[in-house]
């Protein structure tokens, strides 16, 4: 048995989550929101089962190549969206966040990514693989939520002038983005930088080699440091904050994809 049918089912459910989420902004709000949320939980359970099946079948952590990593990233994003919905209420941001999930799942299902199980090279055989990659991707999932919320903030910017209801909605996007960065930044620091350094020191004998992947995670980290300083100390909010959060996440995306396909270095696996 492999995980493909489970992933396909969760993909379809996530599309329905998104559609019912959008429906809630037109039709009977409460009903559609409830349906959307229940579907989200169902999809999450199915995708979790898929991850479990993959882990058992491959015998190693479910994030050792592009296909597995994007699948795990989308799973983490789903987890983060559900947490945010429970704790803070995402309101209008909800369906757009699912648009991101649908995009990620489309990438996971695409034939561009090889899906076969490959045995682990010696450098990857370490429990730090679990810690380093899972915490990093979980952190990036929060940053992805901040990214979507920031885009929504900018998109709402034109229409909200003078409309207090729209203004409130827009401020909510700003707050969601900040809360997501506040959770994602420590996790990213721990997973990508700290755990990465510890593992590098064990596997390669040096904790920092100025490898392109390392430099780009540092760049990503510096962008969010910029976000936090301008916001918390200089009081920037709204548009300028949103721009930094968007660029920061683009840097994170480049660290994840771009470095592998465009630059060469030590992180040649994923």
């Amino acid at each position, binding site marked *: 048995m492999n995980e493909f049918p489970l992933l396909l089912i969760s993909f379809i459910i996530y599309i329905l989550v998104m559609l019912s989420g959008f429906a809630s902004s037109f039709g009977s709000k409460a009903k559609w929101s409830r349906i959307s949320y229940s579907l989200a939980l169902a999809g999450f359970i199915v995708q979790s089962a898929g991850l479990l099946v993959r882990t058992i079948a491959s015998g190693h952590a479910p994030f050792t190549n592009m296909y597995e990593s994007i699948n795990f990233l989308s799973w983490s994003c789903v987890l983060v969206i559900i947490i945010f919905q429970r704790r803070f209420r995402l309101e209008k941001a909800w369906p757009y966040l699912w648009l991101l999930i649908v995009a990620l799942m489309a990438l996971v299902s695409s034939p561009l990514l090889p899906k076969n199980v490959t*045995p682990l090279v010696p450098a990857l055989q370490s429990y730090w693989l679990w810690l380093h990659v899972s915490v990093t991707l979980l952190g990036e999932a929060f940053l992805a939520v901040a990214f979507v919320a920031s885009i929504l903030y900018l998109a709402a910017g034109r229409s909200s002038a003078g409309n207090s209801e729209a203004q409130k909605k827009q401020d909510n996007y700003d707050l969601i983005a900040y809360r997501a960065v506040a*959770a994602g*930044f420590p996790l990213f*620091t721990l997973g990508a930088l*700290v755990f990465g350094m510890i593992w590098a020191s064990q596997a390669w*004998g040096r904790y920092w080699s*100025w490898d392109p992947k390392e430099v780009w995670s*540092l*760049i990503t980290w510096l962008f969010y440091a910029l976000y936090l*300083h301008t916001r918390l100390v200089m009081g920037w909010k709204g548009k300028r904050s949103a721009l930094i959060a968007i660029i920061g996440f683009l840097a994170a995306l480049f660290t994840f994809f771009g470095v592998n396909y465009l630059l060469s270095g030590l992180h040649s696996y994923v």
Partner: protein
Amino acid sequence: MIRFLSSLKLTISLLILIILLSVIGTLIPQGEDPGFYQNYFPRWAGIILSLQLDHLYRSPLFLSLAFLFLLNILFCSLRQLPVKLKQIRGTIEFIPSEVKPAAVRRLASSFSDWFEASPDSLLAELRQRHYRVKIKETGEKKTLLAQKERVGLFGPEIVHLAIMVIIVGGLISALFSQRIELALTEGQTVDLPGKSFSLRLDRFTTDYYPDGSVKSWKSLVSILEQGQVKKQKSVEVNHPLKYDGFNFFQMSYGFDWDQTKVELEIKSGKAAVRHLTLKVGEKVQLDSGLTLNLLNFIPDFTLDRGGRPTSRSAEANNPAALVLVTREETPIYQGWLFYYHPESNRIQRQPGLEMEISLKKFEAPLFSGLEAASDPGLNLVWLGCALLFLGLLACFYLNYRQIVIGLKPGDKPVFSAHSRHNQTTFYQELERLLEVRPDSAINSDRKNEGKTK
């Protein structure tokens, strides 16, 4: 100057500059020869080489930015610390803000009233909510200082200290770490410079997956002190050996081609076919007064630009052996024998030498590439990393809260309630606290109601 060094504007500019330079460093290939840049970036080579962007992360430009960043963090923390220390001691005289929302004014009067009427019950309620409370009475003046999650106030300073520790640790690593590349064949022993022990490779094994890819490299090594085995361990990727300040890492493997054993097949006239096994540098007597000398072995034969034989790689892609045949010290033939292309061996066509020599086998001992590293900056870096994460947690998940109430007969009471995060939620928290005031008229009424029901 100090104002400039501790300014946030400098922080922002430095963050942006460091980001930009780091990006450039990943776009320009690092650590190549000057000629490389002239070939591939003819227009930029001048700038790249003069700014030393070919090793950007060690260039004076990058290091001075990093140093400035360090100073910026240091001075910023030095400016913030005294202010915050004053704040937790409660020595800041609170100036009541002129315009306060009605809700806050209500809080102020309720709390100062509570403090005046029954300080003990307020104290108890605050302590129950994990506030540290201090009450000070000087003359007629009476002040209350309540604080919660004080570490949260210093979150940024902890993070900044952590970054300084990491930068200093990194600097120590860069300046004082020692790395020694060791290539050992089985049974070989090597002394570590400046240390009283030596390292011996006992066995080197490679395990494979069923599909033929490498599963693991294992070097069984012994640490020897005066001939005594002090420690024996199997060193693998991800499993280094630690001993006396050194870490030994499994880095690579390969063949020691200088130690190649070569088997040659010699057919000479009607004589029986002979097989010879010899190493580079060895000589063998042949019949009829001939001597064969193995001069060289190259695993991947090619000719360099000057037409000299050289090895393209360390892989056995085109193995070739150089032999010299002499008769009574007089060279009569010298030429290369090719493993995969025996038709190119010229000796077969050598006139006057009725002899065919071919390279039949070659065998080089496998070596294990180990790296011995000592890094005195390592512990500082780990300390910095731990502080960094704890500091970030303190920043985002500990919310410093402070309540100050000051009473002086004849004067208006002083009240301030401040929280680092989410002031509105804090006000709501205080409203709820007021509801539990035991002696408050409203509350006692409610309680009585509850009891009677």
